[in-house]
């Protein structure tokens, strides 16, 4: 199915751009607020470095 040159048309480009935007947003969110954990909190949002809302002083 996939071989050689990547076939490209306008709709494919649009989909690629959408994927790229989602990718960048996800990476940006993790870089800014840290990875979420199963407690639903965010580590970067915490006032204390590495803190997490399930055990530390922050609100997500």
């Amino acid at each position: 199915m996939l071989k050689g040159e990547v076939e490209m048309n306008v709709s494919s480009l649009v989909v690629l751009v959408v994927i790229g935007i989602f990718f960048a947003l996800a990476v940006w969110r993790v870089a800014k607020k840290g990875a979420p954990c199963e407690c639903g909190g965010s580590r970067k949002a915490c006032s204390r470095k590495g803190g997490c809302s399930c055990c530390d002083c922050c609100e997500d």
Partner: protein
Amino acid sequence: MSKSIKIALAGNPNSGKTTLFNALTGSEQYVGNWPGVTVEKKDGILSGHKDVVIQDLPGIYSLSPYSIEEKVSRRFLVEEGPDAILNIVDGTNIERNLYFSTQLAELGLPMVMAVNMMDVVKKNGDKIDFEKIAKALRCEVVGISALKNEGGMEAAEKVVEMAKKAVVEKGPGKLPDVPHVFSGSVEHAIAHIEESIQGKVPLRSIRWYAIKVFERDREIIKKLEIGVGEMKHIEEHIRDCEKELGDDAESIITSQRYDFIKKLMDKSLALNETRKDKATLSDKIDKFVTHRILALPIFILSLCVMWFLAVAEHGPGTVLTDWANDGFLADGWHVPFTTHECRAEGKYKGMEFEDAQGEFAKQDASKSAWEEAYLEKINEGKSDDDKVEEMPEEIDEKVAATIVAKGVFVEDEETGEPIAKEDNEDEPDLWDVDFAAYKEASEWEEPDPSQFGVWVPGLGALITDALDKAGVSDTVKSLVVDGAWGGVATVLGFVPVIFIVFIFLAFLEDCGYMARVAFIMDRLLRRFGLSGKSFIPMLIGKGCGVPAVMAARAIENERARRMTVILATFVPCGAKTVIIAMFAALFFREQWYVAALMDVIGIAIIILGGIALKKTRFFAGEASSFVLELPAYHMPTVSGVWHHTWNRLKGYVLKAGLIIFPACVVLWFVMHFDWSLNLLADEEIEKSILHDLGSWIAWMFEPLGFGSWQGAAASVSAEIAKEQATATLGLVAANMDGATTGSHIQALFASVSDFPKLAALSFMVFNLFVPPCMVAIAVTFREMGSQKWGWFAVGFQLFVGYVLALSVYRIGVLVAGGGFGIWTALAFVLDAFCLWAIFRPGKKVEC
């Protein structure tokens, strides 16, 4: 801009502070009914009061400087000084809670005492006279029920009012009205101390400081820089008291506090006469649940019930997971409780979907049997090189007319597909298939489920359709469907299992059982020189390893704390639950207990690993004390259980979008491109970057039974987030032709081992018990305090995970009749080393 008002929320552990904090601030801080959940203070804005900050302090029993929680609370209350205190007190244990309240009152800050759990007090028929307590402790007293959200806001409004008033009235030299709870001679000595330290401390809390000096609190004496002469004079007063009362100063203060509380309770607490000396329901339940012999089996049984519901065949978890994986997130599903009759014209018209599937399988089996017989016939007498392996487009009708094959139809229990007679022990159905029957069978096409009954298309089908309609190229379609969506859907498909596990844990936590588990584990661990305090982070670790590692801060002893950090993540967390769920669904459908066994193995590693570590000079020492209050059992509220479950589930779903999605996009690229960045065809995957990367390290996993590039790539990618292992396997499987993702993963393990179930078990054990995800590792390094200790923790976890997987696979293979090899010998040697580390005599080191 006006200065914000700081209100400290202080009280004993498990008195409901965090529940009240969440209710007052609208936060979603983690609440657990065992001590040590809150290690540091948390801030939140009081709802409706932008200028009021509520500060939730760790639960403590007194303002002594012994534990980390006490230090945090004491430092904040005494040095930073909030504007007022909201003291939360457990109404069902008010006598014990008042000890801390008397200390808080001595700080001289405006204080409102919120007597919590009044709903239970009333239900018990007990009566508390708030006025008498208020008068004795010189504070406001109100009754609340934090869990039912009753009275909390009124208490907060009252304390805010008092704080605002105090700010206005605040002036130098104003002595607060604080309770005097001690006997004459002690009060006399305290008065002398107050005179000596005047000017060195804020006047409002001078009494608290004086009492601490009387107790010979080193930290306070050092801080106040009391001169030698002055201290000598103070000492004389203290010694006089000690001589008169026949006890040391600290014990005098403690016992007189209790005397004061006892007298106060005699006046203000009226217990229901009919309940006196009668065992409560909690006492009766605890007779079994915390029983010396029954406790552990009951705990294991509760884990088994949880896993049975989550992963047992035909259980709710499996039914919902199958629906999510095959229906909602994939092709679609039929609306239940409706007929699934075929609407379209053709061979299936009017037929039920299940019957159509059966008919197609039978026709397909006829076709396969006849084709097999035909190929055999035309290959007769030919050399291996000349043999035709696939059906030619044109069939030799003369040869075809001579063939009557035996149709075989036996349904595979797991896949529902026909399987060959020789693979089936049961007597199969047999029928004759001649050329005409073959031609008839060839006309049957696989039934399209969307043509039957009420069909709801799944998200996967909708995405594929949308991309097809938009004319998106195959490459980009593969990136979206197989890469981004495929990986995320593999992880999301297990949400039902995670949901059942989380809801079950939330129920056990909220009803009070988990506190008993800590008690049971303390009793067990103490036998081996470990403390139950170490088990609290491990209970938290069932949700996520990161807060588990951080919760170890509550342990004062550095050696015990380090050991807890190393061991805490061995309890399979929520993300690891996905790995368990996937492998239980694919390999152990009938052996659901394998999932429960993973939790039991985790606990066993903690105990045995703890014993082994304790015997080294780095961790030797006495177990630290562990004070645990068992809350009364109660029926959890729906909102409470939902709150706990949703908070954890939300993190899991978020992670699928924020971590798994980008990781899968990257993995798709490295799986579909070679090092020269040429796009590869599906069959060229062995030239891909991912294949090469996986192959380079696959040898490490060879002894463990999954030494393929796919197994290696999945195991390494699991360090991003543990559930990524399942996403990577799903991604690799999506690239293979044929049936379902699940059958491809089964085929993957079958291709690398003659014992695929053992290889799968080994993969699962390895990924569950090696170091946790990168974030948890980073937190481990930070909490261990040094690179050396961080690497030690990671090395220990890697050793345990590898040895366990090696033993499971190699000894399993030996038992299954697969023979004895060098790796089996190594497994035995490493197991012997582990047993030696556990059972050897320990080091006796003073700590």
